[in-house]
Each structure stands twice: as structure tokens, then as C-alpha cells.
């Protein structure tokens, strides 16, 4: 099936982090051919650094839909490190107002890494992302509305 390849227009930064085949600045290549393609060479603002990282990415993820075991192990290590940072951050002597957002952000990173890499959303048809994101966003929106109803709007 054809991916919705809008290679010319550039959607927002946030979208490109979550959806593949969107912005080539943040789009990680999936094949060697794509990584080598002249079109992407000097387009990104970070120059060769991103380019080099892209190649490393391709080597790690073996280029097709199924990244290598080594890649998964690296993701697992990163997840472990983030968990360790979370537990460490829990002991920082700051107020909840500082620490809680950090904890939430870190867990969001873990969340996105697991769905993106372990659950392959990064490499899959966007429809899977959409059906899942629909439920996720709705759940978050409703939870936040409920919390607001109970704690903010009840004046």
C-alpha cells in the first residue's frame, strides 16, 4: 500500500515527531537508498550531524520494517536509563510543581518510545497510529476535563 507521502509540504514540528512520512527534517530514513538520497542531504538545519545520525539509524534498524535485535536492546537500555532518572528525580529536593512535570515528561518519552519502536508504530501504516492516538488523546482530554471540573471549575 502506498504511504501518504507528502514529501513537499512541511507539517508542524510536533506532528513530525509522532507521524512518519511527514517532515524530512525529523524524518528518519528507512533504507540506505533514502539515507543517501541527494534530496535530503543539505536540507536539514543541523547539517552533517543529522545526516550522520541518520546513517547510524539505518545501520541499527536494518533498513526495513523490522529493526535488528541490537537496536531493540539499545532502546531497552535507554528506557531503563530514563526509568532510573525518574526514580532519581523523585528524590530531588524541589517542590512538586517542578518535579511532577519532569516526571510526566519523562514517562511520556518512555511511552512514545515503546509505542514507536517496540510496537513498531514508527515503521507502520499511519492508520494504526491514528486509531490508537484517537483513543489516547480522547482519554487524556476527558481525564483533564474531569480533573478541571473537580478541582478548578468548581467555584
Amino acid at each position, binding site marked *: *500500500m502506498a504511504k501518504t507521502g507528502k514529501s513537499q509540504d512541511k507539517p508542524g514540528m510536533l506532528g513530525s515527531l509522532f507521524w512518519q512520512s511527514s517532515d524530512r527534517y525529523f524524518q528518519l530514513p528507512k533504507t540506505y537508498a533514502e539515507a543517501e538520497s541527494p534530496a535530503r542531504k543539505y536540507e536539514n538545519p543541523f547539517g552533517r550531524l543529522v545526516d550522520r545520525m541518520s546513517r547510524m539509524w539505518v545501520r541499527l534498524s536494518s533498513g526495513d520494517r*523490522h*529493526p*535488528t*535485535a541490537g537496536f*531493540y*536492546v539499545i*532502546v*531497552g537500555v535507554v*528506557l*531503563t536509563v530514563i*526509568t532510573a532518572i*525518574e*526514580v532519581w*528525580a*523523585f528524590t530531588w529536593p524541589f517542590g*512538586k510543581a517542578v518535579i*511532577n512535570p519532569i*516526571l*510526566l515528561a*519523562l*514517562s511520556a518519552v*518512555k*511511552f512514545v518510545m*515503546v*509505542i514507536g*519502536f*517496540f*510496537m513498531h508504530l514508527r515503521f507502520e*501504516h499511519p*492508520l*494504526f497510529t491514528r*486509531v*490508537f*492516538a*484517537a*483513543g*489516547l488523546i*480522547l*482519554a*487524556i482530554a*476527558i*481525564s483533564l476535563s*474531569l*480533573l478541571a471540573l*473537580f478541582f478548578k471549575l468548581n467555584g
Partner: protein
Amino acid sequence: MAQAPAATYPHGQANLPAESHASGHAENTSTGLGHRKLLMWTFLGSECMFFGSLIATYLVYRNQNLNGPYPSEIIDVPITSLSTFVLLMSSLAMVLALNGIQRNKPRLGRFWTLMTAALGSVFLFFQVFEFHEFAIHGLTPRTNLFGTTFFTLTGFHGAHVTLGVVLLLIMAFVFSRSGREKLGLVLAVSGFYAVGVALLAHFFKIIPPIVGAPAFVITALGLAAMAGGGYLLAKPAAVRNVKAVSENLEITGLYWHFVDIVWIVIFTVVYLISANDGLGLAQGLGH
């Protein structure tokens, strides 16, 4: 359009619902995506609402307790960090299992599948231990709002993990075709659970009769069974239809990873963020 005998109609196999193991191929659907994988993703979207509702209830009732024990008196972050790590590693084992099967290495796939189930079970042992500890310290689902919401949320998560472990064990059974492998599987799995239950019983006195000598005997027997089972399983596995099996394993894996990401949220929201919750707002504000 007159009806003609069925035999003269064009062959329609291509449009038949792809529900069987045999028809895991996805080329014949409008989107090119397999029915069952799409079903699993849709189901997980729906599950977001399920756990979202449970977590929202927890958050609405956070700090509304009228009596203790309060989270600050009872939550043990170091132990839970360990069990979180175990569940995270089970997710890693899960992708390695799928990776093994997709590269047509059934034995590797089965090893990591069993590893995933084992790590998931260890997580469940942690949860049993934790619930037991809480009960000892006077927190049951009936004690206060924290107990009610905490046990319901983590209990339903635990139920999901349990279902996942069962599915994974069925998957491991599917990989094992010969009688020798099946015997090895039964030995290894039952040995593992025997060891787990015996250790849990001995160190935390959950089942009174299994303490001391009986626990050690059960542990020894369990270890022996695991060793024997492992020996029998060391033979190369033969899976006839790797493609179908890998689709099943992939879908089971999606479920498993989802259970893991739910725990990522629970660990942050229920443990790290709430661990210092003490005497709630309830008294302070005269709620």
C-alpha cells in the same frame, strides 16, 4: 441476475474474511492491513479509554482520604522501581521474541517468548507481594479511597498482565510441536511457578504451610524441572507456518507492550507523583 449453481461462480477466496491462522496475509484488504492487527490497534485505542477512566478516578479521588493509611506511609518506590524494570525488560524480551520468529529462528523466538512470560510473572509476584504487604499494613480496598482506587487500578492492570502471560504461554506451546518439546515446556513452566510460589511463600509468609523445609524442597524440585525442561527444549523447534505464527505473536506482543505502557503511566502517576501524599486535602479544606 439469475442464480446459477455455486460451482460456476468465480472463485472468491481472496475476499474471504482473513480470520484463520492460515490467512494472515493482508494483501486482500482495502487498506492492505491485516484484519486482526487493525483489530488489536483499535482495541488498544479503546483500552486507552478503559485505563484512562480508571486513572482519572484515581486522580479525582487523590488526596480525598478521610483516614489512613496514606500513600506516604505505605508506598515503597524502590521495590516498585524494580518491578517496573522487570516489566520493561519483558517488553524488550517480547520484541526480541518477535524478531527471532521473523528471522525464522523459532527456537530463539520461543526462548524469548518464555522469557517474556517469565518476566511478566515475576512482575505479578511483585504485585502479589505488594498487595500482601499493604494488607499487613492495614490497607485493603475497603479501607479508604486510596485503597479503593489503588487496588482497582493496579488490580485491573495485573489482570491484563495475567491474560498476557496466558497468551504468551499458549504462543510458546504453539511453537512446540513434538511431544518432547511439549513435555519440556510443561516441566519448565510448572517448575518456574513452583519456585516462584515457594520463594514468595517462604520469605513473605503468604501461604503459612510453605515455610522452611517444604519451601526449599519445592524450590529444588522446581529448579530441577526447569533444568529438565530447558534440556528438552534445547532441541531446535520446528514451526510449520512461520508467517502465521509471527502474526499471532506480533498481535500478542502489541497487547503486551500496551500493558507495559499502561504501567509506565501508573508508575509515574500512582507511585512517583503520589508517593508523598499524606493527610489529604479532605481535612485541610473541610471537604
